[in-house]
Each structure stands twice: as C-alpha cells, then as structure tokens.
C-alpha cells in the first residue's frame, strides 16, 4: 500500500529553495503527523545538511542491472549491441561485445534480446547509495537520501531505486514528502510520479519563471494538483509568475519573503523554523505546512 498522501517539492531551476522548503515543512508537519522525507536530488543531495545531521545511516547500495556476458555462450551475433540505446555495448567487427559500464543505463534490453541467454540476469552495478536516517527535529521523522556516485551519469534509474525505498519504508497511513533535484528531465518526472500534489518552488526572476513553466508543463501533463511557492519574494517582481500560476491551474500560491536572517541560518545547516520561528520566512513556511496539514488529516494520515 502506498502512503496515504504523497507530496513532491520541485521547481526546475536550481537554487530556488526546493530543499529549504521541503526540510522546513517536514520539520513543522512532523510535530503533528507521521511522515517521511525523501531526498531524491541524487546528484546534489543536501537535505541532511540543511537538517544539520552528523551522518547518514542504514546504507544500501543502489544496484541496477548490468550485463555480464558469458563469452562461452556468446556467438557475437550482435543482437545486444543492436538494441542498446545508450551505446554501452560496443562490437568491433567479428569480436564479442564489450560493455562500457558508464554508458549502461541498466535497462535490460540486451538481456531480453540475446537469443543465446549469454547474459546473466543477476549482474548488477552500484550507481549510488541510499540511506534511511531518523531525524530528531520537529516531532521526529525519517529521511531517505539517494546519492549518485560521482562519475555515474544515468540519474533516473538511481532516483527510481531510492524512491522505491522511500515508498517501502513509509507506513501506509503516513505521508511522504519528496524533494527533487533541479531540472525538467524524466528523472524529475520519475521522482514526482506517485505524488498527488506537486509544490513548485520558484524565484521572482525571469530565469525562475522560464524553468517553472517547464515543470508546470510536466505536472499538468501528469495530471497533478499544483501549488506554487515564490521564494525570495520581494527581490524582483513576480507578477508574471502569478499569471503563469493561473494559466496552469495552480490551486494555491505562497510567498516566502527574502529574509537575510533566514539565509544565514540556512547556510549553517539548521531549519529556520526551529532557529528563528518569528522570522518572516518561518511565518510563510508555517502557512504552507498548515495548509498541507489540513489536507493530510483529511486523508487520514496518522496523527502523532
């Protein structure tokens, strides 16, 4: 059974405050309901740093399929190289296929294309690690973190494996908050896949707006309900962001004002809602958490 309420925090542009919003609302909401936070920004995971954790616990390798060829069975027919979409299987004329690990996305097409069953279905490659750590902030909650190994380039399969762990470790009567990376590719779609509600975090610049539209395009295409957070509000005009929100049927728009005090607290890795509850940013984050809490309780997410 999937968790009762899944919310994804995303935004397109980097540095708009996705992790800032996700960690702070997790701290606030965990005082009232059971929840898990999943950091699926596997290329640059930072939620544990923003929560001031000393270390991550319960490591598991993110192991995806990797073709290990049995050259006794291989006839060098070329079927595997032909179906490989990423160019990971190379064959010089008349020689058996060779696999380039970095290029392999672990999709298994070669495994099923091989007529001689020369590829071992159990071969795996570790592209990263996932962690499950108990966070003792707010009312306490679990943090799942996915980390891609430096040098690996196929992010989406790693996101999928980390997400599956988060779904497995979240009780069915709890809620799951997913924090995604920057970007608008299919790794982001995979991260938000189970979410009913997408919170798009943006900033009041044309850059934020441009990337926001791409994310809203995906969220609308995937039939998600959408809320929007305009972070660092006040540093420039956000009028066009509001127009865009209307265009994409965004249900709610929240403004988190630019707050130098909050920025300082963020920099050293403590949640602003705990360190400075009276800060302007904290008040705005509280408002978001309250609105989410109403939804969570309506859906029967377990109270603490």
């Amino acid at each position, binding site marked *: 059974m999937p968790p009762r309420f899944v919310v994804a925090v995303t935004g*397109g*542009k*980097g*540095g*708009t405050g996705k992790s800032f919003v996700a960690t702070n609302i997790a701290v606030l909401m965990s005082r009232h309901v059971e929840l898990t936070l999943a950091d699926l920004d596997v*290329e*640059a995971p*930072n939620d544990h*740093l*923003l929560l001031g954790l000393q270390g991550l616990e319960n490591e598991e*390798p993110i192991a995806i399929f990797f073709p*290990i060829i049995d050259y006794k069975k291989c006839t060098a027919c070329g079927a595997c190289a032909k*179906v490989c*979409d990423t160019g990971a299987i190379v064959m010089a004329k008349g020689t058996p296929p060779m696999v380039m*690990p*970095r290029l392999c*996305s*672990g*999709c*298994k*097409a070669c495994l*099923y294309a091989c007529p001689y069953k020369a590829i*071992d279905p*159990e*071969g*795996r*490659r*570790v592209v990263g690690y996932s962690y499950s750590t108990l966070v003792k902030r707010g009312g306490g909650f679990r943090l799942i973190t996915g980390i891609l190994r*430096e*040098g*690996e380039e*196929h*992010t*989406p399969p790693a996101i*999928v494996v980390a997400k*599956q762990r988060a779904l497995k470790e979240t009780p069915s009567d709890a809620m799951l908050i997913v924090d995604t*990376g*920057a*970007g*608008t*590719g*299919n790794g982001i779609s*995979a991260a938000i*896949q189970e979410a009913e509600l997408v919170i798009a975090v943006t*900033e*009041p*610049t*044309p*850059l934020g707006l*441009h*990337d926001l539209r*791409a994310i809203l*395009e*995906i969220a609308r*295409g995937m039939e998600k309900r959408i809320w929007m957070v305009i972070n*660092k509000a006040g540093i*420039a005009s956000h009028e066009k962001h509001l127009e865009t929100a209307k265009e994409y049927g965004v249900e709610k728009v929240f403004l988190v004002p630019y707050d130098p005090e909050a920025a300082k607290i*963020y*920099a*050293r890795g403590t949640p602003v809602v705990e360190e400075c509850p009276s800060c302007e940013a904290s008040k705005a984050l509280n408002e978001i958490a309250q609105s989410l809490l109403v939804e969570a309780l309506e859906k029967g997410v377990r109270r603490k």
Partner: protein
Amino acid sequence: MTAPEIKPPVELVVASGKGGVGKSTLTAVLALTLAEKGYHMVAVDADAEAPNLHLVLGVTQWEKVDDVYEGRLAYILEDKCTRCNLCAEECAYGAVEIKDGKYVINPYICEGCLTCSLVCPPKAIRYKFRVKSGEIRVAKTGYGFTLVSSETMPGRPNSGKIVTEAKNKGKELLGPSGVLLVDAAAGIGCQVISSLTGAQLSILVAEPTLASLSDLKRIHKLTKHFGIAPMLVINKYDINQDVLPLIEEYAEKENIPIIGKIPYDPEVPKALATNKPITIYSPDSPAAKAAKKIAEYVADEVLPQWRTWWAKYRPKKPEPYVPVVLRPGQITSTRER
C-alpha cells in the same frame, strides 16, 4: 583588441554542482569581457533542462532553431494487452502505470529503451519514433558574440546528448581557434558529464553554505576524472562567515586556485529581472566590480597561457572512473569513501 589567438580552441566550463549559486550570472560577465577584449569566443548554454543564459544575455530572438528528433516513446495497444504486468516489473524507469485497470506508459518518464516490448508476451507494445527531444538554438547576442543554447522538451530523457550536440555546434561555429565558454547545469549527471568531456579548464562556483560545499566536492571529483584544471569563484562570499573558511580550506588542500570572491548584492536579482548582465545593468555595484575583476583575470592571466595554467592545476593523475560491478551472488559492497 590585444587578445591572443588560441589555437586549437580551449574549452572553459563554468560548473558548481549546486544550482542557483550564480553560474549564468558569472558566465555572462565572462563572455562580455572576453568579447570586449577581442577574444574569438562562442558561449554554450549546457543546462538543457533549465536553460537560462539567453535570458541573462537578453536574447529574445533566435537566428536558427534546430529540432533534435532522436527519442523513441513506447505505448501499449490496449486490445492486445493481457495485463500480465511483465513490462511494469522490468521497466528500469518505472514508466509503466496502471490507470483505471489499463496499462499505460508515462510519456514524461519513458526513455524508449525497448525492454518492455522485448518482454511483452503478446507483443502489445509499439513505439513512436523520431520523437522531438529538444532544440539547439543559435543567436547573435547584442554584445557581439554568438550563443548556442540547448533545451530538452519537458520530461524527456538524455539531456546529455543534446548538450553534446550543442557543444559540437559551438565548436563548429568557433572554427579552428578561440574559446568555447560552457555554462553547465546543476548536478553531476549526464548533462554535466557531457559539459566537462573534452574541456581543459573549469571555473567552479560555490557559495558559503554547507550544501554548496558538499556539491563543490562532488563536481570537483568529476573535474579530476576528466583531467581538467579547476579554478574557484566564491559567490555571495559574505553571507556566512562560518562556512567561508571551510570552502577556502578545501580549495587550499585540493590545490584549487581561488580566482575571486563576489559579495552578496541585491542588484544581481534586479539585473536578472531586466535581462541584462550585472556589469551592464549596474556596472558600479559591488557584485559587478568583483565579477568583472574575475573575468579580466581569466582574460588577461589565465587564457593567454592556459597550457601553463592547465599543467599547473590539473590533477597529476586523472582519477579514473571505476565502476562497481557486482557479480551474481555478491550482495553488497562497502562504500568507497
């Protein structure tokens, strides 16, 4: 116009791991300065999933837009599907969804890898071929140089391939000499790897936050894989005095020259809002002055003798990429760092 001819061309990549630390703002100032000094230069926006450099440079019209059609998208024929669930079990991307009892493939997730059609017993899976995966765009900026930009369609995979194409386009326009200035994406995945492949120099941008430091270490490790000489710029250096020394210590330990620091400056977002580089919008602002100084240093001190610079700061031995392959029966591995 005293800029030296750089032959063959040199590739300089601006990267950071973390997003929003000021890559595009700095790249724009660099590009303007190099152009001003007479360098033959092409700028490439290699953040295909969230391209923004054209906005900083005030580009409103493209001279040329080439569609990239290379994607493949799977779909399921409902009347042939026996709901055996094999495709859903085998898709590495989790793209197969069950909606109202029907199996459908999420077009924002599917990579077109063929696996589902190979495992489907009733052969119920077909493909749309030549799906548009993105665009490569070229514009002459108002500042006298050419910008090549790349953009993937929302939810499409393989942004790294588009980045490679954009870079190739940039190299073609550059010709046999000059500077290819690449603005990389956030992260360390395929787009960033495509940006770094073939580059000699890299400017890493960090801000004094623990998050940025963590991501800096990751992007720096990648530059070591590729034998690139890194330089460091610390942006918004004055927002946190506790974390700043940690970044400086890391740079010193790792032999990364710090080529400048830029203060936090509220003029920067205002400049972005007007689609102008900070040195044009507010040339006397502290951030503009600092960024300009960095750009001049790169133009006057680094690029004219980039080979010496490269020899001095690139890793003596590139750190090889070592895959962690688990043979059948091997359950786990220990983390390597």
